[in-house]
């Protein structure tokens, strides 16, 4: 299994993800410049966080038009695991690989803090090894993470079990005070119909070593470990 971490101009969590894949998970992985990315050389791909193209116009929009995303589209169709973290999630949305929209946070400000997210389904490539209902500690850090979809779209997602993560409170329940950005239904991450493309706003790579976690755990690693295959 070989993973590509695609680097767009303005990506800034690329080195962090790469560090976790290489040094923590000991995986075979490459940091790939978006223009040099050839999907057929890899078994899976990570779109890391950051501010691709400065988030100008809208987070993820410009990167979504990069030729690299054509490669990602092919990989997605072939059933290879694709994960978009934060800005990567925004790019997946803007390129149409995942449905809906990520709009400016309700509070209108960037929010950086540790949140709790509940795993809503074990039926995705990235949550296979995690029990449904498990609650993970991970940090968020974004200004445009408010998940929005039209009522039918949202209903469909829910019915198909495509909501993968929800923000929850200390009682493990999605609630207004646990929702850091005003997302509809506290949605923190979703997947495509084939369940191999997952996007989420929290940063698993920042929660992959106990020393970085206020809770001394490595919950994020449970998601990234899926890249072991």
């Amino acid at each position, binding site marked *: 299994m070989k993973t590509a971490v695609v680097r767009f101009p*303005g990506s800034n969590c690329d080195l962090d993800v790469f560090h976790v894949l290489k040094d923590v998970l000991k995986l075979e992985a490459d940091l790939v410049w978006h223009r040099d990315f050839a999907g057929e050389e890899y078994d899976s791909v990570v779109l890391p966080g950051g501010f691709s193209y400065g988030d100008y116009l809208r987070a993820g929009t410009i990167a979504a038009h990069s030729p690299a995303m054509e490669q990602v589209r092919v990989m997605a169709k072939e059933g290879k695991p694709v994960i978009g973290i934060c800005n990567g999630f925004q790019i997946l949305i803007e390129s149409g690989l995942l449905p809906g929209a990520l709009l400016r946070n309700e509070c209108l*400000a960037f929010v*950086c803090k540790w949140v709790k997210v509940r795993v809503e389904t074990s039926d995705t490539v990235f949550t296979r090894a995690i029990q449904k209902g498990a609650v993970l500690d991970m940090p968020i*850090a974004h200004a445009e993470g408010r998940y929005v979809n039209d009522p039918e779209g949202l209903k469909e997602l829910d019915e198909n079990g495509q909501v993968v993560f929800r923000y929850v409170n200390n009682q493990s329940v999605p609630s207004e005070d646990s929702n850091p950005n005003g997302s509809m239904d506290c949605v923190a991450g979703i997947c495509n119909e084939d369940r191999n493309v997952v996007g989420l706003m929290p940063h698993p790579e920042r929660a992959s070593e106990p020393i970085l976690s206020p809770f001394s755990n490595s919950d994020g690693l449970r998601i990234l470990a899926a890249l072991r295959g």
Partner: protein
Amino acid sequence: MNIPRLEATRLKVNLTFDELIEARKRLGREPNEVELGMIDVMWSEHCSYKSSRRLLQKLPKSGKRVIVGPGYDSGVVDIGDGDVIAFKIESHNHPSAIEPYNGAATGIGGIIRDILCMNCRPIGLLDSLRFGSLDSGHSRWLFNNVVRGIADYGNCTGIPTVSGEIEFDESFETNCIVNVACIGQGRAETLTLGRMDNPGDIIVLVGGATGRDGVHGVTFASRVITEESELDRPAVQIGDPFTKKLVIEATLEALRTGKVTAVKDLGGGGLTCALSEMSSKGGTGVQVDLEKIHVREEGMSPYELLLSESQERILFTVAPEGEEVFKILRKWGLAYSVIGKVTASGRIVAKFRGEVVVDIPSELLTNSPIPRRIARRPKTTREKRAKAQSMSDLSQALCNLLSMPNIACKEYVYRQYDHEVGVRTILKPGDADAAVLRVIGADKAVAVKVDCNSSYCFLDPYNGHALAVAEAARNVVATGAVPIAMTDCCNFGNPEKPEVYWQFKEAIDGMGYMLRGLNIPCVGGNVSFYNEDERTGRAVKPSTAIVMLGLIERLNLVTSMALKRAGESIVLIGKTFRELGGSQYSRLTGNQHSNPPRAVASRERSSIRAVIEAIRGGYVTAAHDCSEGGLAVALAEMAIKGNLGLTVDLGAIPHKASMKPDEVLFSESSARFILTTTEEHAGKLLSLVRGRGVAAAKIGEVSTLDFKVVTENETLICCPIERLRNAWQTAIPELVKVN
């Protein structure tokens, strides 16, 4: 020959008559218009440090870990195994005062470049901010936009903003203080210094295109803000963090080729400053062709090309045959132009359309004459010590203190900063007195904090600045670090005024005293003068932000401030005196006019050494230094963080019998720490500390109940933790909400 001219140039010169004469003498002829502009900028306060240079020499700057001291883009220290840390702080007060968002943003942009120039990767940002009272709409506007400017720029460039400080005081109403610092990590063997050592190297201007923006930005920062400067539009730049991110990555990648011999940021003074500083440091000269510069606007004159302060530009010198370097720049989509080469002439020679328009020794530009400044102690500084009024309900007093903006939780601010990116931040904003960043792949970490208390500095600049150094040092010590170096940013009024110059002189002496006492070298700094409002004639309270860097030798020494477990002992290190001058408690009770706590270097040194030993010994479960709000506030912060209660016995706190309970609890005496320790280790901890001649006492215990301070026969404070938390956490969000 048709060379565009800027008519107003001659009129805009800020040089004094004496300086003009000196320039002519050194040049041996009349400088032409362009040269005059260059001299004007380079001899401005901002570029030349003419009022401060001599005094700054007095700060101690050597130490076994110092690799690069003052004089370069940033200081660099050795943290072992060939790893180095570069760090630097800079002010962006003047632009931020008229355009807080972009002013603060471009401040971050500038400080990042200073780290990059040393071939270090920026890994952390810090901000030291001072505003007027949040009751004022203008201050709220400045505050909100400065914070957003820092957030947007830092977040986008992927550098975590890990620590900072904010103070509110009426003296900063018009002239807010925006100081930003950056720390970077690199390797000793690949450091670069921003100097041109090799004649024959080619000079490459990289990044943003040059426009007319910011021509005269520097001279602007060296003047007092007037009504007019509100119209001085081009002086405030628009930040472009996306391009900066590309510049960072491209520069680091280009440096890895080994073909880039030096890098220098283009900030104040633009190309003129970069060319003259780099060549004069290397004892070389340059020959450049101004037409080669990639521009954003048509018809720019040589004067404008040399003095533009357009953002996101950086200068490389590249060994001949550096084609790989250009390939990297193209990969990152960065524009660049080869504008000339390094020579051995010692002169800056610039051509434009085939004609030599500048021919001037670089040393002339970088070595300004030093004006005579007079220091005179102002009459009003030392007012007589008045006694603070007591408050009878101490629970209420504590809550009121916790909701004072200078003490209240700054989460509203640091929530907006990405403080996690880079996966290094072990102790995050709010976790401890300082931020702690690990060195990836090694069992060590660094701690950083920026600090100053302008009330102390105003009341007694010598003592106040000594205290600032001490507090910054204690902050890193409390996280388990040994302070290894510092850098500073001085913010003062108009140095041509003897009273202001006196404050500055005292400040440097006070810092020097404490630095020598603690054996900490100063590896650089920045000075911002003219922070005063012409309309009111009022200067800001003098304040020097101290950035302290500490080294944590093993990761298991990292210590946070949260109380950990009920039943643990609470130990106070250091003595408590009746020192409420300039304190938050005296501000609360309406009395601001007495002397600040006394800074005694030997006392600080002993306390610091004792705490370092105690942490190394594995005896400490939590640590916090006592500063604003005194002992009670420090204890409350630890309780809130740990979500645990405590009971402290006032009688166990070493103090003079004549002190009243509120004086004991809220005095801001320096050289104190609060530690917690397990029952098992309490005895060892106490004997270790006392063995070093430092006062230490077990003053209470951690509990699962309320926050309690008692005496033998009464309860002085009894508060549920939730009440304390509420007072502390909601204060700033409530204040900024008001319209």
